[in-house]
């Protein structure tokens, strides 16, 4: 006779470790609080009461040590790029990156003549979801969160995450 027999009755749920881990991760995506340019205004609007990203479990955190998501919201200058890389390296695994807006995905309006702008933040950190727009509306960013959640749902702890 084991210890847990008859202790839980109908309240025991059987699931796979993968599903459980993924469910926990995708339901509490905590982005690190920083915005680089005008996209940050839309990011703040997404966090505020009208769009309320918290209903997806997305809650801004003040420290990279407590975060598992980085929203690169804005123009990444070369001077900023090394700082972004540093912040990314300070985040614990598993960690994800959303490139928000055209500047972060490709350089945007600075594509041709921006001597100081990095042509896509994917040159410094691995990007999971690209959200286009200049800047993207809060609905787009929410869609980006949902896409990322779909991606996390397909992960498996048996395979290592690409660093």
């Amino acid at each position: 006779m084991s210890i847990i027999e008859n202790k839980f009755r109908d309240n025991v749920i059987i699931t796979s470790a993968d599903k459980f881990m993924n469910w926990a991760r995708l339901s509490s995506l905590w982005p690190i609080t920083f915005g680089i340019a005008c996209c940050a205004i839309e990011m703040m609007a997404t966090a505020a009461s009208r769009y309320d990203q918290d209903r997806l479990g997305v809650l801004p955190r003040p420290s990279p040590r407590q975060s598992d998501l980085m929203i690169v919201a804005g123009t990444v200058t070369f001077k900023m790029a090394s700082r972004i890389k540093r912040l990314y390296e300070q985040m614990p695994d598993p960690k994800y990156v959303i490139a928000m807006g055209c500047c972060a995905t490709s350089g945007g309006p600075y594509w041709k003549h921006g001597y100081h702008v990095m042509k896509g933040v994917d040159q410094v950190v691995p990007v999971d979801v690209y959200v286009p727009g200049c800047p993207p509306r809060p609905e787009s960013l929410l869609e980006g969160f949902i896409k990322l959640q779909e991606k996390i749902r397909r992960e498996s702890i048996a395979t290592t995450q690409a660093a």
Partner: protein
Amino acid sequence: MEVGEVFKTLESNFPDGVKSIDIEGFDPSATIEASSLLEICSFLKSDKKLKFTSLMCLSGVDFEEKMEIVYHLHSLHYNHKVTLKVELPREKPALPSVVSIWIGADWHEREVFDLYGIHFEGHPNLKRILLPDDWEGFPLRKDHVDAEKYRGWTIRKVKEGYE
């Protein structure tokens, strides 16, 4: 005081310092010699009838055949304004710093140095302000050509002739 009167005062006090006066233009301005810049500026600030206590803006211009520095001065006491210009050669442009007269010139002069490579002699801390410290070149000069890479990151993804 009208701007024409300011120019007359300048001309009578500094017959050698004032190179030319443009009263007809959109922005009436006096072009002065770099050698008498400090003298003229401290006169403009301290004279009881002028009192130009505020340096509103300090800008650099590249005209390809010459460089130019533009000073926009404002008197909070009398509410009158004046524009000064200093012409410089394109090769090794240098002129005295006005930080000792208007402390606000500090960052303005650093910005002009950062983007045009114009040297302000006597500046307390003349180093780059916007671009990273290890940046090479002065991007707002007309003959500036973007480098291929900065710290291994691609600056230009557009090749010549791509349209």
